[in-house]
């Protein structure tokens, strides 16, 4: 009988052992595998609690000018943005009750001085506790940002300027904007404003690209052999889709028989609608895939994926519309700047980034962002061909208003129809300014022709950069 009882107790003990093994597995899962997730969860107040005890780090432009800093006045810590609205779109805000956005959000743990690697060491982390968080040095240049802001005037829209060779974003402007110094007080008004001042149009606004998509269509057409560099097509005054559907040239122009280069110079709708129809929806889809429009990327700011038409279901008319950047195609200015950068960069498209370095309060470099390739979207040969075409667009075509003496600019204008009013003006391209090879995209909402409205913005920016170079 004794034996029996002992045997039963052993069986119960075994059940206990299984239960505790499960318990320990679950605990290890929480405390090891999910530890980072739980620590950085926005609902976990621990990081914020710690941030209250440390002075938040500075945010600087690429020359060390302070874009945001914290000041302790008595018991209160204030976050000050000396440039007011100028950097609001990329840098964001640090609200008291409304959370945070932009760099303030994505670099929160750096700015609070929390190092997740050190945090893993447990109590040893206490030895490295700091009174001030780390500084974040951005790739943005305050002078370029300012000249882009001023050149846009009162118009809504966005400007992106990036280093074509590295993907470092030099300017990112979105208008209308908000003042991060008073965002808490203005929140209700900003939130309800129909002009969406809180939206970072440069990276998150989606627009039809219009004619600015044509360099990519030209590249796709060459790649798929529906045209070569010498073949001529009769262009004007309209492309007949049948069923009484027509796509016309701007101002009903007639260009006669022209080659691909001239088609791009004149931004001929007839030529590109025709090329798109020849490639068909499948060919177009292939091209959009190759150019990375289907690929997402993780970087230090929030970027919106393009909206791509449902290619297999497109009619012939819609396919032709994609060729001139209309139909269902919607892209962000950032994506267009990336597209332009590929042609000026031998077909390579770099991943855009905003954080150049993270620095300790003493100025030691803790982290430096290494440029990374997003995708090789086309061959160096074709990239050079298109790049030369785009140079011709600026010299002889629609982009003449961007010309700055002594600077080589490759560009493409766009005038995008949209259902909400007057056309959007686009200008995208690359330029060699001094030692810097920049890629850019400008969009001015409801402002008319890209050539006359958007191109001069780039002229101003290049002039500013030249002046800075001379200093």
């Amino acid at each position, binding site marked *: *009988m004794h034996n029996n*009882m*002992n045997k039963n*107790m052993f069986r119960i*003990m075994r059940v206990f052992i299984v239960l505790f093994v499960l318990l320990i597995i*679950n*605990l290890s899962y929480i405390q090891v595998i999910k*530890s980072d997730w*739980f620590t950085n*969860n926005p609902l976990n107040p621990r990081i914020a609690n710690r941030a209250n005890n440390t002075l938040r780090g500075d945010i600087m432009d690429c020359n060390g000018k302070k874009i945001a800093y914290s000041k302790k006045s008595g018991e209160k810590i204030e976050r000050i943005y000396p440039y007011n609205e100028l950097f609001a779109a990329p840098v964001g805000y640090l609200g008291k009750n409304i959370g945070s956005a932009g760099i303030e959000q994505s670099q929160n743990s750096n700015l609070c001085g929390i190092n997740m690697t050190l945090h893993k060491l447990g109590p040893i982390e206490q030895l490295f506790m700091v009174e001030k968080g780390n500084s974040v040095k951005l790739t943005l240049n305050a002078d370029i940002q300012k000249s882009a802001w001023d050149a846009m005037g009162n118009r809504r829209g966005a400007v992106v300027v990036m280093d074509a060779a590295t993907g470092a974003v030099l300017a990112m402007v979105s208008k209308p904007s908000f003042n991060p110094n008073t965002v808490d007080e203005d929140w209700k008004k900003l939130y309800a404003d129909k002009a969406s001042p809180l939206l970072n149009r440069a990276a998150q606004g989606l627009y039809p690209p219009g004619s600015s998509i044509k360099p990519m269509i030209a590249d796709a057409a060459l790649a798929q052999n529906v045209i070569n560099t010498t073949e001529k097509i009769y262009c004007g005054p309209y492309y007949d889709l049948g069923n009484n559907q027509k796509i016309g040239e701007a101002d009903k122009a007639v260009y006669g028989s022209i080659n691909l280069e001239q088609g791009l110079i004149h931004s001929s709708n007839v030529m590109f609608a025709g090329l798109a129809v020849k490639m068909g929806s499948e060919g177009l889809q292939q091209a959009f895939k190759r150019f990375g429009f289907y690929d997402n990327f993780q970087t230090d700011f929030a970027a919106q994926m393009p909206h791509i038409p449902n290619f297999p279901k497109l009619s012939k008319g819609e396919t032709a519309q994609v060729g001139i950047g209309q139909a269902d195609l919607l892209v962000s200015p950032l994506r267009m700047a990336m597209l332009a950068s590929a042609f000026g960069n031998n077909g390579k498209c770099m991943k855009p980034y905003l954080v150049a370095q993270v620095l300790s309060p003493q100025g030691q470099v803790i982290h430096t962002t290494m440029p990374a390739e997003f995708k090789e979207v086309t061959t160096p040969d074709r990239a050079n061909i298109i790049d030369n075409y785009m140079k011709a667009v600026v010299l002889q075509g629609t982009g003449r208003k961007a010309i700055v003496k002594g600077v080589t600019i490759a560009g493409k204008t766009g005038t995008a129809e949209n259902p909400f009013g007057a056309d959007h003006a686009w200008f995208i391209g690359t330029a060699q300014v001094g030692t810097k090879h920049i890629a850019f995209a400008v969009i001015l909402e409801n402002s008319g022709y890209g050539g006359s409205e958007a191109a001069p913005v780039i002229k101003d920016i290049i002039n500013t950069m030249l002046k800075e170079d001379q200093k």
Partner: protein
Amino acid sequence: MNYLKKKILLLPSLVIILAVCIFYLHNKIITDANLVIAAAAAILFLAGLFIVRIYLKNVDNYILPLVIFLCSISLIMILRLKPTLFKAQFEWICIGFILLGLTVTFADKILQFLDYPYLLGLGSIIIIGSVLLFGTDIGGNKNWILIGPFQIQPSEFAKLLILGFLASYLQENKNTLNLPNRHWIFLYLPPLRFLAPLVLIWSMALLMFVYQRDLGSALLFFSMAVMMTYAATSNKSYLFLSGVFFIFSGFISYMLFGHVRVRVAIWLNPWADPMGKAYQIVQSLFALGYGGVFGAGFMHGSPDIIPAVYTDFIFSAIGEEFGLLGVLSVILTYLLIFFRGMKIALTCTDEKYKLLSFGLSATMLLQAFIILAGVTKLLPLTGITLPFISYGGSSMTASFIAIGLILAIGAKENNCA
């Protein structure tokens, strides 16, 4: 070797001194009263160990140091989470030690009650009944009784009586209970009147569950009865019956009671309402996750964010500040106490003692498991105290009495052998 072993077993008593030093270094202030309490606690722990060792021949050498380790963790966590309760918790530990001493001293007399199972059963029914009648609602559980300035959780003590009853009743009737008197499908069941006491305990558990909303204690009582019955009779029919009973009553109460549905919903998806109903469990997971492997360090976490952190959720605070290593050592301590208790039970010659010492150690481990599984979201949360660690007099004193009984039985059997 033996000398070294004895020295090592003294170490848990020093945890409190070390922790108070850290507390002082971090806060730069500590009230004189708390300093005196900490010193007194260290002395109590050391003296307690020596006295019991000298006083009780052949006593188990490991259980008490392990208990003292848990008590030290309890004291330092209470000091850290709610310094105002530090003194009270220390007083409860002192009373616990006194009760342990009394239990050990009068063990012969106390264990004589095992000869009167129905007296023990009646006692537990009276206690549970009085809670049902005069219970007061504190923190959502209607399982408290107020006597003057004291808040008592009688279920902690009823637990001991029920274990005593089960041990003696099952030992006396195990043969009858095992008679395949009735054969129904594949179940072998004794006459109903022998089953009645077990059904009574199950119903009591159900009443606590439904009426007092004390899910934790109900689950504990129910499982206690199942464990003990199986250990005594080896009859798997009881396991099957209790399983059916559990699923059936669980299902019925899920359908009938909103608070049960809410608990299950929180368990299944706490992220549906992380700042509302699931706030406590979500904050507990945050605390554990933030702690990681090594913990944030004593005094360097923010466990006070979790509601009821010094009672039901004290384990999460340990996990935040001492990390996975800390909680594993706590878990290991419970397992070691259980294994030592099992060793005593296995070597017992008297079956009543065998069942009682097994029941006492298994119940303590089960109680720890229920609350640990709750705060780590392995099971739905059921409010119940963590033995020797959670703040609270009833839990602390009842746990000390249980340990006293285990130690006494162990010493007694060793002396006989």
